């Protein structure tokens, strides 16, 4: 069972993910050693193809390593069964995507409640929680709107609420500002920073932009699937 209060929260040793591609292989990440404590705000930097998304996919339980070890919140993800991975995705991590990935047939409220309802929590309880988060993110006037009726910033804020609804210990954000203008992008970074400062969430953020540099507690630079630089900072 995952335990979000263990420390370090994330521990990777020799973490490797290689993809077979016909007769060749593509290295996603290779020999990554990583330690992230609870409450960190980690910024992953690197060019396209450096392995940022691969690392997030492994941390998010969306993919399995082909080598090394990975423990998150006390859970050995390499040996986890599909059912355990599912529970992990529900309870330990919340994901935010560059392209928002909201379901177009659901309203803001329904998108926000979705992970909790999938986890089997009662609707009334979930609705109440969602209303709190949506209110905090200034989306109260958009509850019954569909994604097609929202701005980019509104969509990303809805996606953030969706990521938070199950109270996960870790927020993983893959280029969350990539499809936003600078004003909205800044706003999203501020939100993630506040989630980290005020609500104690561990946030791991993959990004090209420098907007998050000032609030990071740990920088990780990746190139060709390896960590080339890892330095702590005072946020």
């Amino acid at each position: 069972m995952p335990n979000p209060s263990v420390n370090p929260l994330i521990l990777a040793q020799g973490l490797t993910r290689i993809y077979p591609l016909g007769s060749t292989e593509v290295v996603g990440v290779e020999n990554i050693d990583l330690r992230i404590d609870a409450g960190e705000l980690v910024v992953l930097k690197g060019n396209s193809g450096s392995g940022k998304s691969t690392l997030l996919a492994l941390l998010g339980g969306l993919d399995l390593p082909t080598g090394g070890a990975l423990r998150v919140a006390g859970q050995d993800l390499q040996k986890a069964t599909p059912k355990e991975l599912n529970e992990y995705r529900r309870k330990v991590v919340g994901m935010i995507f560059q392209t928002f990935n909201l379901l177009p047939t659901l309203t803001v409220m329904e998108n926000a409640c979705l992970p909790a309802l999938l986890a089997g929590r009662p609707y009334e309880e979930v609705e109440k929680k969602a209303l709190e988060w949506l209110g905090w993110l200034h989306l109260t006037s958009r509850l019954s709107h569909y994604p097609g009726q929202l701005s980019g910033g509104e969509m990303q804020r809805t996606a953030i609420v969706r990521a938070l609804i199950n109270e996960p210990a870790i927020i993983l954000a893959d280029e969350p500002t990539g499809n936003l203008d600078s004003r909205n992008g800044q706003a999203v970074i501020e939100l993630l920073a506040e989630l980290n400062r005020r609500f104690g969430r561990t946030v791991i953020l993959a990004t090209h932009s420098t907007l998050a540099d000032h609030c990071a507690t740990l920088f990780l630079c990746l190139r060709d699937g390896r960590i080339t630089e890892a330095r702590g900072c005072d946020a």
Partner: protein
Amino acid sequence: MRRLIFFLRLLNRFSVRNLRTRPWHVLAVVFGIALGAAVFTSVRLAVDASMDSFTRTMDLLSGEADFTVVRSGGRLSEDLAARLWSHPAVETASPIITSYVTVSGREDEPFLMIGLDPILDYPLRSWQIAPSSGDVSRIWLRIVTSPKTLLLSPRLARQLGLFPGHEVTLEHVNQVSRFQVAGVLEDQGLSLVEGGYVAIADLSTMQEFTGLQGWVDRIDLRLRPGATRKDIEDLRTLMPPGVRLEAPTEARESGRIMIQAYQLNLSMLSFVSLFVGMFLVYSLVSLNAASRRRELAILRSIGASSRMIFALVLSEGLILGLVGWLMAIPIGSLLVTYLVRGVSSTVNNLFVRVRVETLILDPWEILLSFAVTVLVAFIASSRPAFLATRIAPRESLMMHAAAAGATRHPYPWPLFGLVLIGLSWPLAKLPGLPGFPAAGYVAILFLVLGFSLLCTPVLRWIGTSFPPLLRRLAGEPAFLAARYVRDAGNRTAISVGALVTAMALFVALVIMVHSFRHTVSLWVYQTLAGDFFLRPKMAGINLYQDPLPPKAVEALQQVEGVDLMPYRHFELRHGKVPFEFEAVPFDLLLQHARFLLLHGNMDEIRPALIKGDGVLVSQVFMNQTGLGVGHRFKVELGPVSLDLPILGVFRDYRTRGGIVYADFRRFQELTGDLEWSGVRFFFREPPQDLKQATDRLRAQLLKGLAAEHPVEMISGAALRKEIMDIFDQTFAVTTVLLLIALTVAGLGITTTLTVLVLERIRQLNTLAAVGAGSGQIRAMIFWEALLMVITGEAVGLLCGFLMAHLLIDVINLQSFGWTFLYVVDWKALLVSLPLILATALVAALPAVRLVLKSSPAMVLKEH
């Protein structure tokens, strides 16, 4: 030319290679089209075979005759031939007798025996004695001079194992007689009649065998060149009362019209499979266009015109149609073998006698099937092709392909749907072409299209009203499924429309067949009352031309313990409309039988019927002749004319035209004809064991009567069962066609669900990323399938009930002249609906497997 070559190269690289990446999907679509095309073509070829057999027989029998002389319900004196022959305008007058006979002691099918004068007939019909039989002129002379000799067609000779010089015993109504085979015919001309199973004898031989000395069935005339209309009128004046001069093609035409009506109706039914297959092509072409939006946008951005994009996408559909048609060839070859037997048996049982020995591959039918298949593929692909032209070039700049999205309807399709449904009934009431209810079929098309157009609002209603309830009952997957189905728009509506079509047809046919069976059953058990039936052997096949011999009648009158109900039966024509006329003792018949009256009140008309002051006509007779209650029935029977008022119209389901009943005693008084065509027996005291009683009666008759006079006997129970078996067999072909249509619709659901999964793979993996378990995602896909299928079934059910009314009250009425009572087989429907539902859910399995194949990691940017 260079542009064409470039286009074909682009088509291969862009479309054909892409099709190869979805082999199973393509196979499913191509198979669906192949099945539809195979069914359509093989049904038409099967009926063509029967038509060919029938028309060839009729043409060969007519030969070069310009006219034929016949007498309604009777025979002609041979002397008339001599009188006609002496007319200056007549080149030859050939008297003919034809009759079906069987070989004594064998169970073979009856074959046609033709008696003719070889000299008088020579200019009219072609037949040759095969040299392998011996000295041809000697054989020819033997036929003319020696009694009890005959010539056999090669096929018949082979079947019977007979050679020249062999003897064979033949049975006819009135006689059993031994013949010698003088020779075998060449395989041409008259020897090809009836599928090649025919015998020819001299006219005198035939007259002696059939007991018709001095009489013939008809006289065929060939006029001299230059014969004028005045000559023809002059010939008509030579006709005795009740005898007429008519074109030899009249009998052929009425039979041809019946078979043609059957072919058209069966073609429409078989077309449904192809129509449903159209949706398969639509779904695959749509999927390909949708999944390659970005590539199409790239093509546009580098200079491809809208016209080229249209042609590219359309060509994909045409390729599927073409490959499907090619695949239909082997499937059709297998199917046609089965269908030829079933169809010719049905035509034989219901309409006219046919004997199909060869199947002809009519190139026009092949061309028609090709054209129809390609047209279906064209129609199916044209909308996705048109939508593909609307993809903007700037979409090539987007990271991920823009979702096709649920199209908001610019047109009020549901309103059009309601208009089409509303128009269908008045349209159906328009008069049809003879034997082909064209307006009725268009009305059915309107009905199906109308209900299919209602699918989108029904799906939207389900997706709007039911999600909260579904969430409570079945959790979040059901909620998500309902929402998706609400917004999926055309993409689900098209396939649900296919299911509506197949479902509506299924329901309509279940109701129609059950209604028909129920009504026929009532008719069989009420109108065809009788404990035992007897008639001359092969009376039916020989059109009741030969009544029971007087000695047979005498013997029958000695049978004790039964009431005898004799009848006199004729096959006549009212203008060009064939019908049956039967004189029956109404006083006895109305004690035992009931007529299913449509017009007239039996209590009021019974006394008049028994007195012989009126007739009853069948619904088919009324619809084909326009004569009903209030009109007079007039017919010439030899020298006598009958002219009686029509007192009632009743339901009747014999298929060789309508029937008119008159009173037996009154008939005998008016015509002086005291003969019996057959007898029904009614036990005076109801026996304890009916079967034993009928077996005893049969044994008694066999001993006394049948030893000298070949007769057919059957118990009432066996006759009624035989009629119901023929009925069931007739609808076996229909049932097969229907099951094929449902299979194709099932394939449509499978491919649609697969398309919907492929289009939403990103969304489905997002669900996995936010915590949906694989079981929950599977459940969501199944719920989508369930909601789509429930919609299809519900809408199809409603459409089917209305379609059944059209089939019963319009299609059947205009095709065959009858209607029947509308009775719903609730049991069959209630059993079949869950089965169809379960089958459709099984159809969702491939889509479910597909969604779980990809990794949730693909939702991240770099994957």
